[in-house]
């Protein structure tokens, strides 16, 4: 089964392995238009390998399809995804396999652009918090892994309204708000099960610098069928030049009776050695009071992109909880 799937993925890569076709105007990583309809389609996939505690895991993690377009001031985006589609894990008794054939709705929303400043969105979307969560898919990240802070501070997805005001001057200023007062759309596919999420964000960018501050509150369903109000704050910064990118996010989460995550932070530097090669160093630290876990992590990574939408990534993670030390490798393509 795994072999068949890998063959399919390799064939898909080969099919889209032409970076640029002058005749059709197709560029790998930019999707393609369906006829002359306001419909563009594309997708992405990733396979990864993990070696941890002397055990291996092979996985077809993402297999996703995108469809989007716009008509006058209205635009839409849909993304459907198989997550952890196939996993082959090494256990003491031998290898075990696991398949998840559920097709999840990752994003499904419509935008209305009033003018150059104001925009309103309705539907399910990536929570517009920090920088990492805006482009969270494997192929667009610089490492196979995600920082812990992007997983424990705020809900990754919001189902509801989103509105933003942007002013384009010497520097760009963006003020946005997220409002959810209903159940999640596809609630299995979120890091928190929520039915409320209210948040505010301010972003300022000028030349190579971008800074952002998010504050928010969401209602988390607990395993004992009760709910808990959680509050978060996240400060983010990004500095980017042709050769270097430095990005950092620092956040905290609390409940009415105190911190649930006192802090979770990362600082990541990406140095582009050439158009294809990049070296990455990420330092992370967090104190998760809710799960009583505290860890410091140093991650050394290397990414090779023969074309930008194709990524081969390797990383090694050193954890202060040494059992968590691991090696990760992934191959991902956006088409």
């Amino acid at each position: 089964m795994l072999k068949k799937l890998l063959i399919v993925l390799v064939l898909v890569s080969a099919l889209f392995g032409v970076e640029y076709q002058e005749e059709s105007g197709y560029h790998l990583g930019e999707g393609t238009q369906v006829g002359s309809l306001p419909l563009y389609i594309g997708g992405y996939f990733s396979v990864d390998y993990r070696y941890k505690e002397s055990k291996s895991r092979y996985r077809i993690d993402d297999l996703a399809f995108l469809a989007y377009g716009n008509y006058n001031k209205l635009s839409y985006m849909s993304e459907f995804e198989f997550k952890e589609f196939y996993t082959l894990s090494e256990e003491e008794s031998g290898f075990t396999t696991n398949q998840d054939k559920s097709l999840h709705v990752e994003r499904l929303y419509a935008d209305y652009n009033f003018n150059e400043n104001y925009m309103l969105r309705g539907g399910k979307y990536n929570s517009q918090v920090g920088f990492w969560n805006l482009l969270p898919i494997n192929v667009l990240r610089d490492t196979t892994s995600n920082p812990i802070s992007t997983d424990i501070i705020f809900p990754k997805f919001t189902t509801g309204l989103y509105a933003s005001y942007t002013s384009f001057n010497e520097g760009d200023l963006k003020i946005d708000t997220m409002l959810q007062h209903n159940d999640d759309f596809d609630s299995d596919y979120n890091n928190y099960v929520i039915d409320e999420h209210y948040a505010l964000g301010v972003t300022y960018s000028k030349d190579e610098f971008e800074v952002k501050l998010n504050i928010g509150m969401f209602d988390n369903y607990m395993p004992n069928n009760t709910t808990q109000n959680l509050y978060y704050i996240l400060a983010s910064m990004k500095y980017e030049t042709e050769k270097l990118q430095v990005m950092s996010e620092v956040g905290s989460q609390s409940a009415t009776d105190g911190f649930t995550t006192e802090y979770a932070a990362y600082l990541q530097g990406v140095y582009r050695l050439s158009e294809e090669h990049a070296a990455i160093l990420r330092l992370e630290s967090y104190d998760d009071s809710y799960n009583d876990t505290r860890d410091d992590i140093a991650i050394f990574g290397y990414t090779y992109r023969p074309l930008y939408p194709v990524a081969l990534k390797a990383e090694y993670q050193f954890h202060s909880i040494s059992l968590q030390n691991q090696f990760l490798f992934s191959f991902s393509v956006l088409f």
Partner: protein
Amino acid sequence: MKRLALYILLELFTSQLYATEYAVVINKNIESLHLGQIKAFFLKKTSYLGDEAIVPINLSSRNPIRISFEKKVLHMSFTRLKSYWTKQHYLGHRPPISMKSQASVKAFIEKVDGAIGYMDLKKVDGDLKIVYKWSD
């Protein structure tokens, strides 16, 4: 030493004298634009100016005027723009359409309300409005 200084000054003067000048031009129905808006339209951060749909037009990817525009106005290299548009595909945004010649860009801008492009300053006539100038 004096000769060297004189030579450098002369070089600077002549390079300024013969530097090619380019212009960002728009359809005459658009009031005016500042640099922040020009960047926002070409990077598709927004596609509207009030109620008017703005249509940015690029020259083809290897055209030297486009390379100069991306470097001097957008402050982004070809490689960085490639990664930018790959990310924008995930976010549901498309790059501007491209045209092969400055004559096509000029004709398109004259004809289409809200069109914006760039070209050699010498090619600009009274049918277009200049909103920004730069030189190599």
